[in-house]
């Protein structure tokens, strides 16, 4: 399975990185993710539902299983 592990492309169009398999999660990963999160928060206004309040209010589901 190791060779199948891939880094999914983020919306910030970063190049795909091979994740080193078997390595424990590292601080470097944490730093990289933080930078990505900042980028994502930058663009989130375009992605978020325009009227969050109305959207959340209208999101009513019937119960299921």
């Amino acid at each position: 399975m190791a060779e199948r592990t891939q880094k999914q492309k983020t919306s910030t169009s970063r190049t795909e990185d091979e994740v080193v398999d078997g390595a424990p999660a590292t601080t470097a990963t944490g730093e990289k993710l933080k930078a990505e999160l900042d980028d994502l928060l930058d663009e989130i206004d375009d992605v978020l539902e325009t009227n969050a309040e109305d959207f959340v209010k209208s999101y009513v589901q019937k119960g299921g299983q």
Partner: protein
Amino acid sequence: MAIPKVCGIETEYGILVRGADNNPVTASSLLINSYLAAHTRQRVSRIGWDFEDERPGNDARGFSLDDALAPEIETHLVNAVLTNGARYYVDHAHPEISTPECRDALEVVTFDRAAEEIVRMSMVAARQMLPDGAEILCHKNNSDGKGNSYGCHENYLMSRETPFGRIVAQITPHFVTRQVVVGAGKVGCELPGASADDVPFQLSQRADFFEEEVGLETTLKRPIVNTRDEPHCDASKYRRLHVIVGDANMSEVATYVKVGATAIVLAMIEDDVLGDDLVLANPVGAIRAISHDPTLQRSVALRSGARMTAMEIQWSLLERARKYERSHGLEAVGDEVGADVLRRWEEILTGLEHDPDSVADVVDWVAKRRLVEGFAARHGARPGDARLKALDLQYHDMRPERSLAAKVGLRTVADPDAVRQAITDPPTTTRAYFRGRCLQKWPTDIVAANWDSLVFDVGRDPLRRVPMMEPLRGTADHVASLIADSDTAAELLARLGA
């Protein structure tokens, strides 16, 4: 030895109509019919689901409520069988896809991902049927934030010889604590009386909805262990453990570890090596307490009187699984996949222990919490702010351009080509192969299908039912050449001696 853990996932998607009448039952039917019309050779609803062997009221503890319960499945609703061996249907007021029977956790991820693609294709196809500007939105989540929940169920093949009481007692600690690894995260709390200030964020979509330790219900007073005894195969040999306690995951790795680790723990229970020492004093209280504590520090009481955190219980289960791997092997869950699952399970626990943010690329609740906390810090949003709940909902949005899960950099495990193929082709490793290939080759000769049979209409003879009572018969190894060599369904039936 434990029997092969044939497994699958059934997911009910949240559904919302914009710009047209928001009736979830009608919308779910339209969604599925649009897909069938646009992407399959089936005439809509031509191949129906066969309810002959459905017994959702049978209880694994040995009694039946079929007479007392209203029929759970309304037969007039859309109910299709796909050529990949999956079932795509309207359940209650949601579109639901059950993956075909899979041989291991990697196949489950592949077919769960294919199911997501099918839902996306359905949303696009449904747009053509709706007024201009109207659309159907689907979310792969489990709650609307207003107290309504819908499920993502797992199924595992178990030996009938394993005492059900042992399964209940020994799997419950895993079901209560695995949310630290595979919870999908939720903004707020849906317990009556709890406010967003009490629980601004929790690990699980579903934990607020579990009220019993064990029982038959799935829609009310949900139990942590569901007792539905409906094996969809030879009932004298097998059970199907129907697991209703999980969240729908956006992270492929989470789905992988959820199914893979659970299959291993069930194999250990079947081989009676797990033991009773992790049995919890109060599982219902514990599942909520653990979900409501993203610091992962809260301990819960065991029946022995000891207290452990969810992390400690998960570590203990992982250590036992490692030992089991050495003593028994992992053939029941697939050796290679089983070993990979253990490695990833350990990576996640290690990450959660040292720096939870380091597993934000595999653990859904961590990925979601970073998003929510980052947004809250930047915009000064307080608990209860609608924008935070909108972020939560949108994490699960099936529209690729709106899905926040698609933007947080989640790692993947399924081969993208295998996912594409799984939209139309069945797994080769289970009886789903026979179901799927027959539907591909003879769509007009099959009048009904369900998990354990296909019903053929080949003209002048009476309808012919082909039973498939063994989940691991009807694989590509068994029937690929038989199907290839048969020009007609009648020829296939003759060769099968049906």
